[in-house]
C-alpha cells in the first residue's frame, strides 16, 4: 500500500515507523498475534521463523527464532504489557545476542476506509543502544538495502 516511513530523530533513543495495509484492523491484529500467521511474514524471506511461545495477554511472554539455511539462528524474546487489543499493544523486545539491551515497543492500529495504518514506537535505553540495534541488527538485508537506498539517493551520491 503506502511506503514504509522510518523516523529516527537525532539525539532521541527512539525509532518510529508507519505503514498502511489494505485490510481491516481485526485481520491485521490477527496477523500480528496468531503464531501460525506471524511465522508467514515476520522477517526476510531467507529466514525460517520458529515460535517457541507467544502468549498474547498482559504479562504474557514470547520467544521466537529466525534461522537461515547456513545454520545461523537468532533468538528474540520479550513480554506483553497490558492487554493487547486490535487498537494496539505494548511489548518489550530483546535480541538474545545482546542480552540486557531491551526496547519497549508500542504498536497502534488505526482503521480508515478498510485500510489499517500500523504505527510502531520503539523506545531504547539510550541513543547508543538504538544506533547499535538499527546499525547491526538484521545485517543480512544490509547489502540489498544499501543498493536500493543508493539507487534512491543516486542523484546525491556522484561517483568519485
Amino acid at each position, binding site marked *: 500500500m503506502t511506503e514504509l516511513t522510518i523516523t529516527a530523530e537525532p539525539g532521541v533513543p527512539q525509532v518510529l515507523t508507519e505503514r498502511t495495509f489494505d485490510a481491516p484492523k481485526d485481520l491485521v491484529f490477527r496477523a500480528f498475534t496468531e503464531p501460525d500467521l506471524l511465522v508467514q511474514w515476520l522477517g526476510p524471506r531467507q529466514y525460517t521463523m520458529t515460535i517457541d511461545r507467544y502468549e498474547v495477554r498482559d504479562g504474557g511472554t514470547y520467544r521466537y527464532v529466525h534461522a537461515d539455511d547456513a545454520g545461523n539462528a537468532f533468538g528474540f524474546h520479550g513480554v506483553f504489557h497490558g492487554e493487547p487489543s486490535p487498537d494496539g499493544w505494548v511489548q518489550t523486545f530483546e535480541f538474545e545476542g545482546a542480552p540486557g539491551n531491551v526496547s519497549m515497543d508500542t504498536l497502534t492500529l488505526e482503521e480508515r476506509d478498510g485500510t489499517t495504518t500500523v504505527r510502531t514506537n520503539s523506545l531504547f535505553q539510550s541513543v547508543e543502544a538504538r544506533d547499535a540495534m538499527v546499525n547491526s541488527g538484521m545485517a543480512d538485508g544490509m547489502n540489498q538495502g544499501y543498493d536500493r537506498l543508493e539507487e534512491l539517493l543516486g542523484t*546525491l551520491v556522484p561517483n568519485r
Partner: protein
Amino acid sequence: MSVDQLDAVFGALADPTRRAILTRLSDGEATVAELAAPFSVTQPAISRHLKVLERAGLISRSRRRTARLSHLEAEPLKEATVWLAGYRQFWEESYERLDELLAALQTAETDRSDPNDPTGRGTA
C-alpha cells in the same frame, strides 16, 4: 562515523531546502548566489543552510576570487544511508510478505462467505 556525526548528518538532511542544495551540488560546485537562485529565500538564509551542511561534513567550501564555492562531500551521506538500510530492509520485506498474507486471508474469507463474488475482495 560517530553518533554525533550521524546526528549532524540526519539533522542536516531533515530540511527540504538543504536536500535540494545537495541535489544541486551533485551536478558540481556552486556559489551561494547560484544556490540561492531557485529558492525564494535570501542569500544569508542559504548561507545558514550551508553552514549546517558544512558542520555535518556534507559539503566543503573554498574561495575562487571573491566567490565562495560549495562542493558536495558524498562519504557521510553514504554512511548515513547504510545506517538505516538493514533495519529498513527487514521491515520492508516483512511488510511486503504481510501484504501478501492479508490479501490471501481476505480472499479466503470472501470465498467462504460469498463464492460468487467476482472481485474476490468482498464489499468491505
